[in-house]
């Protein structure tokens, strides 16, 4: 069976070394790495926002050739920045994620992300955490095959961290899409099926969370080591 995502030779000058990556449908993958290691570069390259070399296929379709309406159904990208300056309503921002208007789908997402009381408020007046949820709803709107999420769990309170993970899990089960999400908090990666460790512009470890969390590559990449239940700064660093 061909994988949902096939990326071949993705490269960005000075930021991402030529990278091959496959993701199976239904797979929930986290991307971890130190600040500036290349997590965002990898996600942006996969979304074909910026790409010096390489090719991306989703369900066998080359992403770059797809027009906007088609591309919305192939992939969506959630940027790490949550700044929104125009006074567009929550409902309308979610709608922007759809290739054609669909009020039913917008209502569904408003309910799922508990945005009901905010639905008609302008997004530029919301808190960062609330905007994160609105942008997550927008990213989910078109039910894309591949969700590329840059720090989707940042700025969220503990309830919403758990709820977001639950929503992502149910999306992968229901629609058999694949999720790639960059994550900062190492305690959150156990919720994912697979972990990619990025260091210095390349994927240096790829496997189940227990394997990657205990790997020597992780200690090297983050300059930390296991200490009881938690972590401490590596003495070698």
């Amino acid at each position, binding site marked *: 069976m061909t994988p949902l995502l096939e990326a071949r030779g993705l490269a960005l000058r000075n930021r991402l070394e030529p990278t091959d990556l496959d993701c199976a449908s239904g797979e929930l993958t986290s991307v971890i790495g130190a600040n500036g290691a290349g997590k965002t570069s990898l996600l942006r390259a996969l*979304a074909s*926002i910026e790409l010096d070399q390489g090719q991306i296929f989703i369900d066998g379709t080359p992403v770059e050739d797809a027009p*906007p309406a088609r*591309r919305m159904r192939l992939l969506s990208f959630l940027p790490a920045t949550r700044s929104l300056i125009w006074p567009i309503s929550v409902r309308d921002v979610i709608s*922007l994620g759809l290739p054609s208007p669909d009020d039913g789908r917008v209502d569904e997402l408003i309910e799922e992300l508990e945005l009901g009381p905010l639905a008609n408020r*302008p997004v530029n*007046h919301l808190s960062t955490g609330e905007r994160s949820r609105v942008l997550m709803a*927008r990213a989910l709107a078109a039910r894309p095959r591949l969700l*590329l999420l840059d720090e989707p769990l940042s700025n969220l309170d503990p309830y919403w961290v758990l709820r977001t993970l639950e929503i992502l899990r149910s999306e992968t089960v229901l629609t058999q899409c694949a999720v790639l999400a960059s994550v900062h908090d190492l305690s959150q990666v156990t919720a994912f099926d697979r972990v990619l460790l990025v260091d210095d512009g390349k994927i240096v470890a790829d496997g189940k969370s227990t394997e990657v969390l205990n790997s020597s590559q992780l200690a090297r990449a983050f300059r930390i080591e296991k200490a009881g239940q938690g972590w401490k700064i590596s003495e070698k660093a």
Partner: protein
Amino acid sequence: MTRSWLLLLALLVVMAALSLATPLDSLIELRKADPALASMLVQELRLPRTLLALGYGAVLGLTGAALQATFANPLASPDITGSSSGAALGAVAGAYWLGITGPLMLAICGAIGAGLALAGLFAVAGRRSETATLLLAGVAIALAAGAGTSLLLALAPSPFAFYDSFEWLMGSFVDRSLPQAAAALIPATIACALLAQQGRALDMMALGDDVAASVGYQPRRLAVEVVALSAIAVGACVSVCGAIAFVGLIAPYAARALTRGHPGRALLPAAAIGAILLLLADLIVRLAPAGRSIPVGVITTAIGTPLFIWIVARMRRTVAS
């Protein structure tokens, strides 16, 4: 939205009709005395004036809306970004130093000036800059272009350059000919028609360049297109009617209230509102005592300044909350 559209269009038609008919009593009298002269008066004097006020207003509204969407800043507009001043500098350089008299060639000079000013703004402030950076860079470019215009006029071979150019550059629709109106409005209409196609892409850019790029738009190329087309439209109009402030700032602001904040969908409503505003300002100008003329730019600035201050105060509150 459809209802507000119909209202805007109705208002536009009424304003255009008023602009052609005012003052009505002298027109009726002239029509009784000499119908041929009356229709010539309407065609040769009033029609270009109405067309220019309507067209230039639409250009300011639409380019203002497009620039605001592109710079992700509700204060970007042809005047604030210095492109109107740049266009005036280009037109003055063409008229007084290169000896250009053809209105179409002058329109091209204006477009080049506006384009250079916007390119300068890109270079100094970058695109998605803080409001303060954008405003300061725009003010600096506008001041530099203004000083350049004054210098070119002061040193111009013609000793009357300063006096001549006053009426021309202060923003006025008086005594423009149909060929002049055509030179301004034909390139402007083409540029605006192309700009108007970009609404959907500009709405997507409201979610950030990366989101727009991830669905297949090209934000950087789009920004260059918006800047170039705005420069052509504004430059051509400034070369015939001078720089007119604030319409390009206020019209998009009002239009976004109709499009529930969407910057891209606001393009055409902003054009309609800009046209209505400028037709209104030009009607107010005609209330001046006989024999005196007030430049229309003075009226738009008088109306625009308090609104501008209000917008800035509102922005400050939004940022603070």
